């Protein structure tokens, strides 16, 4: 019974962890979401293991199956890294430019919209409406994607 190539297995599993820990774990905190450095560190370690595992697999004593699996695992790891980079840098910037959005120092266009109790609300009204018996210091408008 030959010893398994644990380096390629470690690299394979670690590259899966490196990719999927972004959407499932690291996206929760601004410091790891705003740049995926934690995932890139994990990928760097994974790629080292994949490289060492690949070198091990091409030693003469390893079977053809081991060689094929190692190549597949290494290619898969690189593909996952490419996938993460594509998601973050390319898909992340798939947003309209919004060059006409109100700039700092300019008047915010007034509007009338319906609130969750089906009542009409205007921006002008929100800017003077008392909160806890005090006029508001400011109004924060949060445009969000919604549930459709």
């Amino acid at each position, binding site marked *: 019974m030959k010893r398994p190539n644990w380096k390629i297995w470690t690299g394979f599993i670690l590259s899966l962890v490196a990719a999927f820990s972004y959407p499932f774990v690291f996206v929760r905190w601004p410091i790891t979401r705003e740049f995926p450095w934690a995932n890139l560190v994990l990928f760097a370690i994974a790629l080292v293991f994949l490289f060492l595992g690949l070198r091990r697999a091409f030693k003469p004593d390893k079977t053809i199956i081991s060689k094929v699996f190692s190549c597949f695992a290494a290619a898969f790891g690189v593909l996952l890294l490419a996938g993460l980079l594509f998601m*973050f840098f390319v898909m992340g910037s798939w947003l*309209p430019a*919004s060059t006409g*959005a109100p700039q700092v120092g300019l008047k915010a266009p007034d509007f009338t*919209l319906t609130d969750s109790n089906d009542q009409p609300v205007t*921006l002008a009204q929100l800017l003077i409406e008392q909160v806890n018996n005090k006029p508001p210091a400011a109004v924060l408008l949060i445009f969000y994607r919604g549930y459709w």
Partner: protein
Amino acid sequence: MGISVDTPAQTRKHMVQEAGYPFTFLSDPKLETIGRYDLVHAQELASGKDIARPAEFLIDPSGTVRWRMVTENFFVITRPEQVLDAAKALR
């Protein structure tokens, strides 16, 4: 307050009842205000519809924009402390 294309019934269910947010949610299903603020994300991939892109504006009582965040990357979104710092700077 929050503004989206969701209907009042949807914001009541998701934002008020389920999420429990205490602030106002406004519905703009025809994207009139979202369009006037140039924040329409046309044919957005996940929804397949025209929806609002994420953006935040802090408006002072005179109606002037004093701070804004119109992100260029979906993963770089406003941190709560950024809004609080901007609000404190108004005083």
